[in-house]
């Protein structure tokens, strides 16, 4: 059999298999249940779904049969604080942003009632991503103010799903806070955990700048340009910080249901200092383990679980990090309990690190010392040695360019405070505290005595200072330092140090 006939033979065999599969398929589908997640008609008395506002999550359904579940969700347009002193008119599902958390079991028949409060200006509807059907329910739930719509769906697929309003202009309804999460539990329920929380990110577009006070209106231009003023967890800056931080205890397992309402941004969700043991990313059934940052698409969600091990405040952020620190995407999870030094020690050392003194940089100092011993020390040697020493000891405050820091550390560059050799040496050895005026500006801080420096070092540093940054030049000798030091009681200098 040559290669060609072998391939032809294979082809025929494949065809035959495909034919067999096609014939068998109808039989197989007859034997199988009607659809995945359809566990038959609802049983028992209808159950009214428990709805919770964020960050709370309704209790597990704890059911082993499909039921008829009635969801009553009310749309309310209301003005709430988006940031301290900043009001915004939100459109809400259930009075909160994000909207009420809905929890059902796979196979449940959900009778959904969408009520639009009579005080509403706008008609609204709802698209639940957990619904199989046109518009996810949106086509059947368009509801005028003061009216109610009803539709029913079977929750065929388990998972965590976003719901949102889909009334024109859709983006505006979403940007005003019209989104939330619905959890469809698998038939056996989710593994038991100690804490469950509901966190949902959204981006907001206001006429005024970030934190500009007063009532702020929606800005369509910014929304179209995808340039949010705020990126928030749970609809307000500070919704999950301070007293409102979510809490857990050491040893507890925490499950976060994290959604992203958008309308525009994708979230790089991260908890600083924690690693998610498990993430059901994109809300799907696959589990990813040991995750640092999980990507949550707009109109998507995830379930993240981890064990609280070390007490402290854990900051939840969108790791597109400017959003966290400049647009509000910040929440706190406070873990309380006993420290476990085996896992995390806390700060064990706080010491000065003089990186610039290391190795090669000190070559100039060595040269200066050698030349001084040989009696051939030049001002240039001193300047070079002083530069290396200055970088290690002095530049932290006076800065490498000698400019100091405005209002805190006085400049050495072109400083009118330098004075004669005696004064200079004295300041280095004795330190200086209290008010001084340098180049016409007042400074009131403390320079500690630098008497750990030897005479050569002080002389070289000061010579470097005198010959740098437009200062007048000159040289300080080891003898100059020696004389001043002789006049200083060593004990005093030490005491102030």
């Amino acid at each position: 059999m040559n290669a060609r006939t072998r391939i032809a033979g294979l082809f025929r065999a494949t065809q035959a298999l495909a034919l067999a599969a096609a014939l068998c398929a109808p039989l197989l589908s007859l034997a199988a249940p009607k659809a995945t997640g359809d566990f038959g008609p609802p049983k028992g008395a209808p159950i009214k779904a428990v709805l919770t506002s964020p960050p709370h999550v309704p209790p597990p359904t704890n059911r082993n049969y499909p039921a008829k579940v009635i969801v009553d969700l009310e749309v309310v347009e209301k003005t709430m604080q988006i940031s301290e002193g900043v009001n915004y008119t939100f459109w809400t599902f259930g009075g909160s942003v994000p909207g009420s958390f809905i929890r059902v079991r796979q196979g449940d028949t959900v009778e959904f009632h969408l009520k639009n409060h009579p005080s509403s200006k706008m008609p609204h509807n709802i698209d639940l991503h957990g619904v199989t059907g046109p518009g996810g329910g949106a086509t059947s739930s368009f509801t005028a103010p003061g009216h109610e719509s009803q539709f029913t769906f079977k929750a065929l697929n388990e998972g965590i799903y976003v719901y949102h309003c889909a009334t024109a202009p859709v983006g505006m309804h979403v940007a005003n806070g019209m989104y939330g999460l619905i959890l469809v539990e698998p038939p056996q329920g989710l593994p038991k955990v100690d804490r469950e929380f509901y966190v949902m990110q959204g981006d907001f577009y206001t006429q005024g700048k970030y934190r500009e006070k007063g009532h702020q209106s929606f800005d369509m231009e910014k929304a179209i340009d995808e340039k949010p003023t705020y990126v928030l967890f749970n609809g307000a800056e500070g919704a999950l910080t301070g007293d409102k931080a979510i809490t857990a205890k050491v040893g507890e397992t925490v499950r976060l249901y994290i959604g992203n309402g958008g309308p525009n941004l994708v979230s790089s969700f991260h908890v600083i200092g924690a690693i998610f043991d498990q993430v059901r990313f994109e809300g799907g059934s696959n589990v990813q383990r040991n995750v640092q940052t999980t990507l949550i698409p707009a109109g998507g969600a995830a379930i993240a679980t981890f064990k609280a091990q070390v007490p402290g405040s854990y900051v939840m952020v969108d790791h597109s990090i400017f959003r966290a620190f400049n647009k509000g995407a910040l929440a706190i999870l406070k873990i309380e309990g006993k420290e476990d030094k085996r896992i995390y020690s806390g700060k064990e050392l706080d010491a000065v690190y003089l990186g610039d003194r290391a190795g090669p940089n000190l070559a100039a100092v060595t040269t200066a010392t050698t030349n001084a011993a040989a009696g051939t020390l030049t001002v240039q040697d001193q300047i070079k040695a002083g530069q290396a020493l200055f970088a290690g000891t002095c530049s932290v405050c006076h800065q490498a360019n000698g400019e100091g820091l405005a209002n805190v550390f006085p400049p050495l560059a072109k400083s009118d405070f330098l004075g004669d050799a005696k004064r200079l040496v004295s300041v280095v050895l004795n330190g200086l505290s209290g008010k001084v005026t340098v180049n016409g500006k007042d400074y009131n801080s403390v320079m500690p005595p630098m008497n750990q420096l030897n005479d050569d070092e002080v002389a070289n540093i000061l010579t470097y200072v005198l010959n740098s940054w437009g200062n007048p030049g000159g040289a300080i000798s080891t003898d100059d330092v020696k004389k001043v030091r002789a006049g200083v009681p060593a004990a005093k200098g030490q005491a102030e140090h």
Partner: protein
Amino acid sequence: MKRLVAVIALAAVCAAGHAAEYAKLPGGRFESVLPQGAVPTASTPVDIAPFAMRVTPVTAGEYAAFVAAQPQWQRGRAARVMADARYLAKWATPLLPGAAVPASSPVTDVSWFAASAFCEAEGARLPTWLEWEFAAAADATRTDARRDPAWRRQILSWYEQPTAAMLPAVGGAPNAYGVRDLHGAIWEWVDDFNALFIAGDSRTQGDPDKLKFCGAGALNIIDRDSYAVLMRIALLSSLNGADTTGSLGFRCVRDLERTP
């Protein structure tokens, strides 16, 4: 007390007794935010015939006079298929608005059928969407101020406030045609509200032959800045003829003879 009620009722009836004030609008070539031609993305201007429009929305007092004269439109008597359960729900009695609904405020919680009947009784009709949009395009000085962001901002600022428990009296500042309260007061019924093509799910309008219009983020609306107007269309298209809401009232128009 009874006497006071009688006086109020009389006042209401008298108010309605005066012929309602109408302003003349010249009509003319007009570009609607809704596509009027075969191509949904291209503007097709239409000609609007001259018409006269009520200067203010119909007030609760005027409506009280109407139900007094036409008892079949009183709350409790109006057929449920013509007016839903919320019809005039805030009124103190089927005949009188009462303290919670000032007689000078726009009547709301009225159905399209009821509004049409009122206008007919006044020898008028409900405006078409195009007539309403034409009149509402004006600001105080210009007949078409729609390009001005301030015009849009004024509309949106009203959308942002949930409906007040008590609506203010009619009689806001007149626009260039002398018509008042088109923005910032209430939603208003139009005659052809059912023909405004926004489906319940505004994103599914992909079939241009069927719907000619896509509300999804105003993609197919001719001018994307028109979303403020789009929202009024969205409200109207969420309704059935018997529906009523607390922020929805109406005004009437009359045809005008073209200038001889």
